Each structure stands twice: as structure tokens, then as C-alpha cells.
């Protein structure tokens, strides 16, 4: 087949195809910019929906794996939402891998899993943990460059009234969960550009610095706001950037 005259590289064209497949709203507009016949555009629409459903099913299964242990007792799993009616509407609008889409699907999953006979009083918190984990697993957008320290796109801190890390350990080893695990913990969920997901407990100065890294303050202003030495703030931000929790300006 002859190649159409164009200044665009083939690699750039491939990027346009990838964006088209990942973005349901782009597919709704028009395929006129792409060398796609109407018949092939219909097939591309099917493939885009297939990719999104597959992606969220996979990420839900990976992220809601502890609540899945109770699937036979409660008759539900989080990934069932991708086969539900609401998901059809979502597939018509979603940008696969975007933070917004991850937030919507995470909420759908928690709603689906909440309306059950709870296996324990900690159930709601377990779902909140898995929802925050899912946000990391299902957000694939690159971080834009920044001139000022800011939080990673999907990074989120959650306060729990139960010791979630210990609860997960006990669930894995099929041990009972008693009131001895009632403890306030603040967990930070983040992901790196390479896709590694971190869940770390925050306390003290790191929590203060994280809270004040709002994308409006520079390092000196954060140090001033939290009354800590600039060096301490720099070191903490560096550590947080290594786990994808904050994005720093390029050196």
C-alpha cells in the first residue's frame, strides 16, 4: 500500500493511534485524522472498549485481593463491577489510565463491596486501603514537569483507625483479627514512573512536610511553614520523590 504524503513520522502516528484507543471521548469525535476506514474505525472502537475493560478488571483483581479472600462468604468480588451496567457508561467516556477514571472505578468497586454482610468491623477500612492502592495501580499517566515540589498525581495519604498493615499480614496467614489491632495509622500510597507501588506509614516530620507540599510552596516556604531546617525538608522530599509521592523540579 502506498504511504500517504505526510511530515509526521510513523512513530508519531502510532502515538495518535494509542491515544485514540485509550480515550473513548476521542473515539466519539472522529477518526478522520487517522488512516482508518469506517469499517476499521468500528473495530478500533470495539478494541478500545476491550482494552479498558481488561485493564480495570486486572487492576481491580490485583488491588482488591484481600477483600477477595471473603468472596465466597459475601458472594462478591471487586472486579465484578467491570461486567455491570454502570460500566457500559464508563466505557463510553473513560480515558484509560487517567487518574479521573481510576477514581470513578475505585468508587464503583467500594460501593459494590460495601453493601454486604461485613466480615468484620474493619471491613470499611480494608476497602479504603484497597481503593487507595487501586488508585496507584490504575493510574498510568506520566507526571508533568514541575518548577515547584508537588505531590505525585495519584499519591494519597489515608488515616485509618485500624492497623491495616498488620491486618493484611493476619489475613494472609488466616489469623483472627481482634481489637488489639485498633490503632491510628497514617499511610501514604504512591507509585513511581516505573510502576512500583509503595505503601508507607507516615509520622512526625515526614507527615508535616507531605501535608505542606501542595504545589504552591517552594522548599524554603515548606521549611518555614513546618518550622524545620531546609536540609531536613530537602532530604525528606528527596526520599518521597523516590517512591513517587512527590515530584521535584529537575536539577
Amino acid at each position, binding site marked *: *500500500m502506498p*504511504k*500517504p504524503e505526510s511530515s509526521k*513520522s*510513523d*512513530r508519531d*502516528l*502510532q*502515538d495518535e*493511534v*494509542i*491515544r485514540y*484507543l*485509550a*480515550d473513548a471521548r476521542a473515539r466519539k469525535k472522529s477518526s478522520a485524522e*487517522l*488512516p*482508518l*476506514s469506517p469499517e*476499521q*474505525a468500528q*473495530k*478500533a472502537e*470495539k*478494541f478500545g*472498549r*476491550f*482494552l479498558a*475493560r*481488561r*485493564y480495570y478488571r*486486572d487492576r481491580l*483483581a490485583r488491588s482488591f*485481593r484481600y477483600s477477595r479472600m471473603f468472596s465466597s462468604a459475601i458472594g462478591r468480588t471487586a472486579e465484578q463491577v467491570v461486567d455491570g451496567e454502570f460500566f457500559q457508561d464508563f466505557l463510553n467516556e473513560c480515558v*484509560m*489510565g487517567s487518574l479521573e477514571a481510576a477514581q470513578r472505578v475505585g468508587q464503583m468497586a467500594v460501593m459494590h463491596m460495601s453493601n454486604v454482610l461485613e466480615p468484620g468491623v474493619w471491613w470499611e477500612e480494608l476497602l479504603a486501603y484497597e481503593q487507595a492502592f487501586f488508585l496507584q495501580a490504575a493510574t*498510568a*499517566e*506520566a507526571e508533568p514537569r514541575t518548577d515547584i515540589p508537588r505531590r505525585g498525581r495519584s499519591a494519597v495519604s489515608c488515616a485509618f483507625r485500624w492497623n491495616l498493615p498488620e491486618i493484611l499480614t493476619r489475613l494472609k496467614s488466616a489469623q483472627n483479627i481482634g481489637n488489639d489491632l485498633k490503632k491510628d495509622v497514617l499511610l501514604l500510597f504512591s507509585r513511581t*514512573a*516505573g510502576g512500583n507501588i509503595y505503601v508507607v506509614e507516615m509520622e512526625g516530620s515526614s507527615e508535616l512536610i507531605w501535608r505542606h507540599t501542595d504545589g504552591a510552596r517552594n522548599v524554603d516556604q515548606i521549611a518555614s511553614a513546618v518550622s524545620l531546617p531546609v536540609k531536613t525538608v530537602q532530604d525528606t522530599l528527596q526520599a518521597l520523590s523516590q517512591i513517587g509521592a512527590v515530584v521535584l523540579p529537575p536539577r
Partner: protein
Amino acid sequence: MPSILEGRISIGAFYNPHLAGELLRAGELIGHLAMADPPAVDDAAFPYIRDRFPLLLHDYLGQLSDPLSPHALDRARQLQDLYRSPWVAEHFQCLHTQDHERTLDYVFPPLYTEEFLQRFEANARVLRDTVGAPLVMENIPGFFSLEHAQMSEAEFLRRFFDDTGCGFLLDLPHVWLAAHYSGIGAQEYLKAFPLEKVVELHVAGVELDRDLEGPWIAPTAPPGDILDLALWVAERAPKLRAVTFDAFSPSLTEETVLRSVVATRRAFGLN
């Protein structure tokens, strides 16, 4: 470490950590294991797996349509140090944008053009030199086509393998699907493929998908059609060393893995 014997076709599967005990108890049935992910830090069974089976590096090392980052190359080298794989596998795919803003997170072929051929060849050589082992490349099916290709998939693959000297990992469900959606038979579709370069075959099942309204790859046992196709290819692939049941998923059962390996061994007259 164990290795795949010369002059014999090894029948194996992917390493599914939740089935580690079952894989270790399978005796001589499973000849090798392909590694789709690095072992988890808390995977207590992996040292036994590594002592027991030849391992094939089949991770996502990066998309060879673009240069791999130093980090990706370093990771590939470390994985190869861990597995000592007789060959390292990657895919003919291009699934994320150059700015990493969007990804399809799933198999998606490149445009079959001169530009992409050059890109894949250059980046494959770098990866092969980095890991210090032969590189095999796996074919990826398309579900729709763009009016932009400059050559067929078969020509793209043949020229790539001729130019680089890399081996061919022929995924048969992928070929079956590509042929199905092209409206021709799989053997007909394969006629122009460089089967003499095939080092490894993938077998698995296909199932109807609701969105595609047609068949797609499934982590199920390979049906007779796929196994017949495997034999047909094997008769034309003098360099074939391994056939792998291509399925890895936390929901995969011991029964499916073992049944698939037994069926594949039987098809190759190895039971």
C-alpha cells in the same frame, strides 16, 4: 542450574507463583518455566523453582520501538543474571506513547513500516548486547488495520530476523487470531512467515470476548486446532527448542496448567 537439553523439544509453562508447590511436584512433566514477572521478595518457593527448572526470561523489558532507558537495560541484565535464560524474549509491540502519557497496557503491534523496522532492529541489538544472550521476538496480533502499512506482518518479521539474526518466538494463538480476523486459515497466514527462525512456540486457548464480539486469547488449555498448528509448524522449524503453555494469572488452576502441558506433550508424542 538446569538447562534445556540440545536436540530435544522441551514442553513447559509459565511460572505462576501461587502454583509453585504444584509445579515442583509435577516431576518430569514440565520441562521449563517462563518468567513473566520477577519473583516476589517473599516468594519462598522461587529458589527451589530455580534449582529445578530451566527458566526463560519473558518479562516486559521495554518496547523495542523506542530506545530502552539505562534503567530498563540494567533491569534486563539483572533478570538475566538471575535466570540464566538460554534466550531472552521481547515482543513486536508498541503500546505506550513516547511521552508515556498514555498506554494500552496490553499487546498492540507497531505499524509495519520501514521506520518501525529500523527502530526495532536497532533497539533489539542493544538489548541483546546488554543481556549477553540470544534474543527471540514474539509476534503480536492486530484486531484492526490502518491504511498505512508498507509491508505485511510476515515481511516485517522476515526482514527483522534476517537483518538481526534474532530468533522467532511464534505465538500460535496470536497467529490464529490474526488469521481469523484477516479471514484466512492459520496455515495460509503462516506461509510467508520465517518458520526456519522459530526457537520457541506459545500455545494457549482462545475464547469469545463480549467487546470484540469474536475470539481472543484466553488462559485456557490449547484446543486441538492450536496443537495441530503447533505440530505443523514444528515440522517446518528445525531450530525449535521449546513449546510453552502461555498463561499466567492468579486465577489459573493447577488442573489447567497440568492438563495443558499433558495435552501439548501428547501432541508432540512425548507422553
